[in-house]
């Protein structure tokens, strides 16, 4: 079975499904929904084959394929995954069926909606699997377009502004990256877009710096790092629920993934040089995101800003240059996807019922919808980093990883943990606690079966990773170690910064 190209099949199953759904008459809404669910479940099943066949202790690329595509230009179809991308692929395929369930009640323009959703899945899976820069870029842009339409066409009141802002921001970043990719292509001795061929291309430090910055611009917008984050709250807030879930859970991770996969290994010297700056930006993001989240009056916006803070943690972990930080950062990418994805689903459920996202319109919902309230609190606690739930493991590893390398740098980051507790518990208090004052709140129905089905897998994983992260970390570690070595393998970072020298 292991000869079966699970990964490549998984990438194109959703696209194939999208084409087939294109053939269904557009007013057969239920058929379209069930077909989409089936396609996404099929893709998930295929990625399970990836997971099962993944060799745990290897740091190499696995399970991919290589085929010539446009030979004259050195473009090939080349895929493969390692411990860094494995769980990104899994997260994407795992969340997609849930997002189809989330979107079950979409009644307008159902057919294009699901086509875009499926196209988006192929784009995202491709981004995490591509090992050819051209192919990567293609998938990168291909994931951008469906999301643009999802926001612009099925979003809320201010969707057009949000969609455009999202698009322009990411596009400007991508453009710079494209230029850098082309430069790299020509700089390589034997012109090739192959990632593995481009690794280790000797570049002058000046060139490295410029190219790294070009890549960094694209990824930093996507992550997003403060101050490039302003597209995020608008896009998250205005997107339909499934769009918000996918944006937060997967699209943001494309930025962090890009930094790990391309930023550091292709330009290690430049990356190393910029570590203090990037860490500074990450820490600013942690505090900034948390403070701004605390001020929000719109619940969805609050969660959107919390992503800025959480992704700050991820970037911090990636660039501290210790295995704990890198593994923790990668695990935290998964964790954030699960927790924030679940939070967006819950907010979407509240919106479906009350047609508002304003915190002030709610209050006392724990009385009328105790299960929704309990689930919200549960997920919020995982986002806060409560031990026993997933967020703790990642956050702890990032903090300890930062501490062993930079000791006191970790202080402001840790206060981000306290701030997270403040804004989430405060929001919980205002939405779910206190007296039930308004009639719509009093009669608000609690969770339904479809919603239980779409949340239960997320909650199960939140507990599983919190209690038993070993299977995840065992697969992440070898690849993470490799990248950490690439980041550290030089004397640019003075030895004083190393562990054991606590002042």
């Amino acid at each position, binding site marked *: 079975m292991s000869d079966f190209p699970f990964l490549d099949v998984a990438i194109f199953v959703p696209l194939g499904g999208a084409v087939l759904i294109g053939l269904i008459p557009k007013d057969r809404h239920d058929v379209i929904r069930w077909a989409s669910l089936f396609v996404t479940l099929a893709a998930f099943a295929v990625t399970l084959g990836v997971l099962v066949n993944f060799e745990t202790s290897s740091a190499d690329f696995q399970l991919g394929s290589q085929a010539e595509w446009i030979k004259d230009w050195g473009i090939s179809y080349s895929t493969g995954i390692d411990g860094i991308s494995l769980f990104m692929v899994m997260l994407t395929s795992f969340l997609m069926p849930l997002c189809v369930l989330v979107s079950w009640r979409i009644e307008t323009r159902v057919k294009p909606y699901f086509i875009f959703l499926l196209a988006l899945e192929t784009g995202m899976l491709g981004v995490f699997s591509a090992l050819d820069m051209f192919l990567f870029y293609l998938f990168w842009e291909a994931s951008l377009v469906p999301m643009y339409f999802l926001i612009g066409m099925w979003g809320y009141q201010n969707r*057009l502004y949000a969609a455009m*802002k999202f698009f322009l921001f990411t*596009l400007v970043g991508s453009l710079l990256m494209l230029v850098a990719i082309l430069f790299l292509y020509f700089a390589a001795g034997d012109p090739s877009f192959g990632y593995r061929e481009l690794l280790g291309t000797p570049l002058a430090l000046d060139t490295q710096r410029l190219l790294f910055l070009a890549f960094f611009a694209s990824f930093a917008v996507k992550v997003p790092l403060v101050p490039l984050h302003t597209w995020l709250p608008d896009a998250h807030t205005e997107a339909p629920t499934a769009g918000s879930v996918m944006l937060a859970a997967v699209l943001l991770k494309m930025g962090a993934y890009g930094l790990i996969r391309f930023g550091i290994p292709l330009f290690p010297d430049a990356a190393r040089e910029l570590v203090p700056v990037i860490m500074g930006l990450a820490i600013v993001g942690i505090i900034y995101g948390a403070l*701004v989240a605390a001020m929000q009056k719109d619940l969805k916006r609050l969660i959107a800003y919390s992503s800025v803070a959480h992704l700050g943690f991820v970037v911090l972990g990636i660039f501290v240059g210790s295995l*704990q930080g890198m593994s923790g950062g990668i695990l935290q990418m998964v964790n954030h996807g699960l927790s924030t994805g679940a939070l967006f689903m819950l907010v979407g459920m509240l919106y479906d019922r009350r047609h508002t996202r304003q915190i002030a319109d709610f209050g006392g919902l724990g009385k009328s919808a105790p299960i929704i309230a309990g689930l919200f609190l549960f997920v919020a606690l995982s986002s806060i980093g409560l*031990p026993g739930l997933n967020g703790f493991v990642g956050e702890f590893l990032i903090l300890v990883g930062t501490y062993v390398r930079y000791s006191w740098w970790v202080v402001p980051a840790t206060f981000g*943990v306290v701030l997270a*507790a403040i804004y989430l518990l405060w929001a919980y*208090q205002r939405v779910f606690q206190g007296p039930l004052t308004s009639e719509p709140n009093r009669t608000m129905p609690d969770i339904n079966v479809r919603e239980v089905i779409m949340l239960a897998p997320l909650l199960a994983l939140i507990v599983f990773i919190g209690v038993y992260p070993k299977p995840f970390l065992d697969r992440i570690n070898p690849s993470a170690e490799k990248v950490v070595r690439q980041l550290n393998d030089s004397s640019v970072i003075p030895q004083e910064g190393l562990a054991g020298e606590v002042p």
Partner: protein
Amino acid sequence: MNGSFFLAAEAAASSRDGFITSLMWLVPLLPFVSTIAIGFFGKKTKSGGSTIGIFAVGTAFVISLLGFIDLASGAHAVEKAWTWFQLGDPGGHGAESGGLVLQFGMNYDFLTGIMFVVVTGISLMVHIYSTGYMHDDSRYTWFFTALSLFTGSMLLLVIANNLMQALVGWEGVGVCSYFLIGHYWEEKENSSAAIKAFITTRIGDVGFLFGIFGLFIIGGTFNIPELNHLAEDGAIGGTTLMIAALLLFLGPVGKSAQFPLHVWLPDAMAGPTPVSALIHAATMVVAGIYLVARMLPVYEAAGAALDVVAIVAAITMLIAAGLAVIQDDIKRVLAYSTISQLGYMMAALGVGAYTAGIFHLFTHAVFKALLFLGAGSLIHAVHSNNMSDMGGLRKYMPHTYKTFMIGSLALAGIFPFAGFFSKDEILASSLHHAVDGSPAGWIVFVVGMLTAFLTALYVTRMVIKTFFGDFRGHGEPHESPGSMVTPLWILAIGSATVGLLGIPVIGVFQDWITLPGEEHHAFSFGYNIILPAVTMVLAGFAGWLGYLMFYKDRIKVDILGSPFAWAYRFLENKYYLDDIYMGGVIRPVQYPIARFTYWTNQHILDGVVNGVAAGTIAVADQTYDKLDQKGIDYLVNGAAGLTGVSGGLLKYIQSGNIQRYAAVLFAAVAIFVALLALT
């Protein structure tokens, strides 16, 4: 009963492998299982899940007792561990390799054993009591789920052989405390108190986390016995260890409500009273004491850290006792009293008196749980927390009265009740320490005597205001049901007797709970007869003064113009600490700083973006008009096809603007294609 334990302890000289002691991991496991069982099936059972909890915790209690007997009759302490997860090279234990091994482990010795008995025993009483007290509560099942989860987390913390597992349990009890303080969340005040408790202790936990990191880097391990050995051998020490130990201490300062992070505990009284008894008196708040006791060898090697512990504890016990004197809410009296007594325990550890500190933890758990449950019985009867609505209740509630009196005598440290022996041990130990030349010892001793006086004073006041005089409330108060009174009597018997375990010279407690190298002072007339006599006289004087002040009204304290008015005002405002935190920390962060950040976000960052966007649109407009429509379209044939396809999609978008944007998008794609084609 004492005799058999006595024999058992003597047999401890010959060690052997115990059978029951090897099974002690069952104790934390049982409440976790019942958490899940109650959570999923509790509503379907006739008892609403409470019997599941009682059964699990009751079984855990029995196992804890058996395990303790096993230990006392000579079984080895047990340490076992399983890997939770690890990074990097398993051999490379330390931080430098980037590796890290986290374990789940059990460390069962006398200290764990006594904590197990206390936690499961009090938890069992609270479970039984709650079936009566919470009977009509709308979230009855949830309440018992949280009680089980709390008990499991606390036991997980106590059994931990490493700091990370301790942290897991530590945060677990914290979040249960948050759930339970905010149990009556329909009122904003209560949910705010819950948040305050969670955040305040979490601020301490930041320090705690750094302390753990620090010890990990210095000692290369999270394992508690290993760290203690390293400290005893002198392998770690110096300023770095002192800093790490002090950071670690911030955790206990939050959790065990030590100055200046004690402010959350009085507010935590918003929770149901059984919760206050279990969490905010007997168990969770002693987690900090337990942790410092566990790590005492590290603290002793950490330079001045232990003196800091002693001084912080001394401040805590005095200021809290002062506040207890003026409260009207009976639960707040007990809350401040708890803070003050926690100060005693911490102070004992601060002067190196390990045995005395744990002994007081043990006796206090019993009598303070009794007092809280007794207060709950009163509140249940008069439907008010305020002592101004009580009075004369001894006639209406004889069982509550008798048991509450026993608890009060124990708290005031009256011979032969439990608190007498344990408090006396602490005072005697600190005096020893002081005579040996330690300034911290003098501070603890003097402040401890003063606090003993204040304790007797507020206890007298509390008893007079509730049980004596005339009833000032409404209606006819009734004695509470059997499910509530039975635990009161069990705890009352405990409060009267457990002190005997630690009688100097003949008691067994000091044989059980002892640190290697800790010196036990031999019986001496000065320390063991005169000092207790002095404290008894002091307590008697305080009682007499309280009688004059609060019963006879000979001395007016709480009115303006009296010589005490300024002090009263100062106490009434809780030394203005809450105001300082609100005005000095929370408000500035909440308002100016967060507002400013948000304003920057909205006006500066977004302003730039919108400005650029407007500019771009203007440019794009031109691009679309001039370049796209007239130029590129026919320059790149493929792009023209694309635009045609896009038109089909774009008809969904109503806005004219978005069409223009979309066109710009496709123009951009076209440019890329052209670029690729040309290069």
